């Protein structure tokens, strides 16, 4: 009982709530990428590899742009105005190139799965395997290193203090001072909702996902719609990668996605590809991940604590399966009447 109250005390702090938001960010982006793919009828298994690749390209582009703008002058001795300019240019380049890398990976998947009609699962797996080794290979080419990009001076997306809110106790500590990508991820939830349910493209994406033959019969170009949906999926994977290597930390290290793409996919499944429910599911995973972190300060076996997020994933999937099973039963009962 004492342990439970200790845990409860830890979970009540604003710092904990802030860390939940931070941890949720890459998971949420990956989950949004998963939604766009799933809605067009393709399971994007390559989320993990796409975000890893995006994370690498963001760091490389950012570092090289910064270096180019500085023109070979060391940041320590250069004119402060020039350093600011270089930092901003690096940030922008990292963001753009990281995003493009995410989209490129998704387009590769689209070409194989939609263009060549390969099995999307296998293609996704192949992309993940390729990304695991390929990122190290490219890192070696770009930086001469194989583990972490410590020789690259890459940038970070800005951390934002929200006026007014930052002065409110507790709330300010939780919601202000987060990285731009964290706020952006929640804006993207609304964006995905808007695209899917308020635009013609969204309607086509959903129609193709529900029944491609029906969509085709009314003149929808199924392939084109799937390419568009996967491009969006890659876009969010790109953001996920940037949120890892340019906001969470400011470097790339091999395998740094560490399964976050798959956790994002679980969140998407748990939320049944609905933007709002998926965001809640992603937040739930972020919560359990953060809880596993704080519980390490208590006398609980580490192995048990580290299993919590995964146990939560399993539990979530079981609950989801039972729910959808009940829905199907109800529907059948209605039809039988």
């Amino acid at each position, binding site marked *: 009982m004492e342990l439970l109250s200790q845990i409860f005390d830890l979970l009540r*702090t604003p*710092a904990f709530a802030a*860390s939940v938001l*931070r*941890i949720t960010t*890459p998971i949420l982006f990956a989950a949004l990428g998963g939604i766009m793919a799933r809605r067009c009828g393709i399971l994007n298994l390559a989320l993990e590899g796409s975000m890893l690749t995006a994370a690498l390209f963001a760091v490389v582009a950012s*570092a090289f742009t910064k270096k180019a703008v500085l023109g070979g002058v060391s*940041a*320590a001795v250069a004119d402060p105005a020039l350093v600011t300019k270089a930092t901003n240019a690096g940030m922008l380049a990292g963001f753009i190139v990281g995003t493009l890398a995410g989209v490129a990976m998704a387009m590769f998947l689209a070409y*194989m799965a939609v263009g*060549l*009609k*390969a099995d999307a699962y*296998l*293609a996704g797996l*192949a*992309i993940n*395997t*390729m990304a*695991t*080794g*390929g990122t*190290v*290979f490219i*890192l*070696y080419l770009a930086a001469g*290193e*194989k*583990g*972490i990009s*410590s*020789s*690259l*001076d890459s940038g970070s997306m800005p951390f934002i203090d929200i006026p007014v809110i930052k002065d409110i106790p507790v709330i300010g500590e939780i919601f202000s001072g987060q990285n731009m990508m964290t706020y952006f991820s929640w804006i993207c939830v609304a964006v995905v909702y808007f695209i899917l349910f308020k635009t013609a493209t969204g309607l086509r994406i959903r129609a193709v996902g529900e029944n491609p033959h029906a969509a085709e019969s009314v003149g929808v170009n199924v392939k084109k719609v799937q390419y568009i949906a996967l491009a969006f999926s890659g876009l969010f994977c790109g953001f996920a990668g940037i949120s*890892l290597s340019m906001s*969470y*930390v*400011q*470097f790339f*290290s*091999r*395998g*740094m996605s*560490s399964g*976050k793409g798959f956790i994002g996919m679980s969140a998407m499944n748990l939320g049944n590809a609905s933007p709002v429910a998926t965001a809640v599911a992603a937040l739930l995973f972020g919560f359990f*991940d*953060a809880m596993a*972190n*704080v519980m*390490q*300060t208590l*006398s609980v076996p*580490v*192995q048990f604590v*580290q299993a919590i997020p995964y146990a939560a994933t399993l539990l979530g999937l079981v609950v989801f399966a039972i729910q959808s099973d009940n829905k199907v039963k109800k529907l059948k009962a209605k039809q039988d009447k």
Partner: protein
Amino acid sequence: MKKLLALVLAGVMALSLVACGGGEAEGTTESGEELLKVNLIVQNLGDKSFNDSADSGLKRLVAEGKIDYTCTEYGTDNSKVVITMEEAAEDYDVVICNNLGFGMATDWLAANAASYPETTFIIYDEPSVSLPDKNVQFLCYKANESDYVAGALAALISETGVIGFVGGMESPVIHDFLVGYILGAQYVNPDVKVCVSYVGSYTDAAKAKDLGVQDIAAGADVLHQVAGSAGNGYLEAAFEAGKYGLGVDADQYEAFKESKPELAKSIVTSSLKDVGESLYVVVGDMVDGTYEWAEQLWFGMPEKCAGIAENENYLALVSEEDRATIDDIKAKMAAGEITVPTAYGMTADEINALVDSAK
């Protein structure tokens, strides 16, 4: 169409394999045949830690023209451990690795070392296993001594009396650091509080950073990472909060000095485990014919394989008084007045009790 697809997929797979194994070490000499053929087997280089250290130690021997050296990177697929070792055992005079695949390397040696009498195997950083075979040499490191000094330093420069420690995974090797760290800190400040956590992997830098932010929130102002490349996230958390970081294995100040000077300046020192130096000595002795087998060869501060990095940043950040205290502790360790217990052979309960004593 299907054939084309199969080709594309095969190409993709092949590329990833090539990428994993890319970058064979250069440096075979012209008169290669007469030289001792040495093979280092690692998962991957680039860890800025002991694999890179081992590689650089052997490259020093290559530069001196003493050995013919190749590094094999087999990637993360541990099912390749045995076959990689079998091939190396047939092709090389000396095969060097750590206990790959969570003990697969020593399991294989226990059964097969006798079948390769011409080959010498060197296993570094595995003190929990020993084999009677005279062609298997274990090299062990007194990381507890390095971290005793690091812990003492952390407690000295901490203003809050709270210091942090993050490990990659719970294992005897990491515990050995931890035991030294806590005891060293307690030697200086008996009331010190040590926040101990584990990332659960050596790659999840984001998680390590979260753990760092959390330890800083708990009051820690010196953060020590023993978590490979993930640990850099922990150091970054210290830097961003204006606190101090302590690196591990190699001198991490050097790694960031050029690219991120501000971050580098927050890394006061690193707790050293110089695998490269030990291999340089042992393999060098083999070439010179002065090598003698022992079940375990231990490397500590007198052998320059343990201790802390005393670079320009250390001199700049640590006051003369504190440095004198550290030197005093090192002198006492050398004289045997302070003996640092090792985590090898300690039970989990004993380690937990130690961690709890600094909570």
